[in-house]
């Protein structure tokens, strides 16, 4: 599978990832090499094999629906420089 520059731009947009324009070609080349390696998987027939999502095939545990954490808004917002009245500030999205 060869990944072209347009593919790189598309997936970078999907991932909301800014990339330098002059690096697009080298990302395309790297990702193509990686995909070439990944495609060795196709040597093996996996028809009927159950996909494995968890190494121990465990289900996600459920917990009871009760409050276990207090409100730590101020502590948690200390890591953002753009906070006002307990709210995170972002660029205007509605005019």
């Amino acid at each position, binding site marked *: 599978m060869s990944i072209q520059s347009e593919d790189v731009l598309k997936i970078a947009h999907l991932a909301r990832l800014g990339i330098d324009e002059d690096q697009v070609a080298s990302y395309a080349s790297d990702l193509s*090499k990686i995909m070439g390696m*990944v495609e060795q*998987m196709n040597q*093996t027939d996996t028809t009927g094999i159950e996909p494995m999502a968890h*190494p121990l095939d*465990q289900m996600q*545990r459920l917990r009871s629906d009760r409050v276990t954490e207090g409100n730590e808004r101020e502590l948690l*917002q200390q890591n953002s420089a*753009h906070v006002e009245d307990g709210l995170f500030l972002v*660029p205007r999205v509605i005019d």
Partner: protein
Amino acid sequence: MYNKSLKQLSTSLQNKDISSVELSQYFLDRIKRYDGELNSVITLNEEAALQAAAQADKIIHAGNAGPLTGIPLLHKDIFCTEGLRTSCGSKMLDNFIAPYSATAVNKLTQAGTVMLGKTNMDEFAMGSSNETSFYGAVKNPWDLQTVPGGSSGGSAAAVAARLAPLASGTDTGGSIRQPAAFCGITGIKPTYGSVSRYGMIAFASSLDQAGAMAKSAEDAAYMLQAMSGFDEKDSTSVDRPVADLVSGLGDSIKGLTVGLPKEFFGAELDADMRDKVEAAVDTIKSAGASIKEISLPNINLSVPAYYVVAPAECSANLSRFDGVRFGHRCDSPKDLEDLYKRSRGEGFGDEVKRRIMMGAYVLSAGYYDAYYKKAQQVRRLIKQDFVNAFKEVDIIASATAPSVAFTAGDKTDDPVSMYLSDIFTIGVNLAGLPGMSVPCGYINKMPVGLQLIGNYYDESRLLNVAHQYQQLTDWHTHVPTGFEE
């Protein structure tokens, strides 16, 4: 002092031959003296460490000390540490002060350890050479021109240079074992789910597992014992009692069967590497074990499957870094999309970007079945190979890495060749098994690692085999030249 075992240090502390404050200051001084050239530590925690050490001394004086009370250690900078910068080796988190501590950190703190600082690592644990860190590459103390391995390269280099007796690490595809091998130390990644992932910054959640890095299997056993245990804050934590990892050290390994996967000893294995691993296996045999050739027929697909599963999970996990709530935020964004794109574009390095894009690609519409589902199916085949092998053998042995530490810069332009340095370790993560690396000799004066893989939840036997090997060899006691004073 720097080469003493954990037991010896603990005895010295409890006999009041030395205080924890003195011991902590001693290792802080070693860090200051040697780390300028190694770059293994990102953040030093001097003041708080000495306070914690003074607290440990009180516990020792009260006669309530455990084996880890007052013992200094370093934590990989992937573990959240309350009130202390937790960078994950990334510009993205350069300004991040963790509001809480990881469970593994809390458990080790409760056991009385003293955190001296946070170790350097590949950015978001993505790398095999510790060259992707925002804080600069880590050097291998055995040869400063070579890499220490990755991603727990700072922890490995620090323990190798005896800057701390213990360091924590995490292992998603070999990130404890490969740097342990490159730096000539002992490292263990336990069964998936043994150590809580709570507060451990996520890379690939179905593969990430924390573990212990130390000089010897015995030291690692004490550390891992303290870190392990069920945690309801981690939904993948395994709810079972912590096995006793320490009291079985010293048991005879007579009658044990060691499996050698023929796929790991193929023609591509370097002849010198083969010699070292075979000699190590012979030593284990001399202690009464028998050796059996086994086959892991699908193991050659582990790197390809991993480079679908890990990037897919990484792209999901790293979507939380949006420039809004924490982490790097770009200047003067013109709109929300610009905020996301530039904050992420500026905050992440190249390798992280490659993996996020790989993940977004394999998960994107039309490709999911061909890549992600296929990789999960291959993953099951690989796991089944190990399950079948463990019906015949107790332990599996191989080289930890296909080579000794390579020269810095050698593989940075070729991601696939870098990925292949984890060819022997990745299968263990896909299967969720425990694995470790112990030093077993040198090639061209650089340490070689022997990888030992155990069955699920069989860390106690795994550590004992390593311990028995270390009773018969002294590689683990060697200190790199230039760090002996």
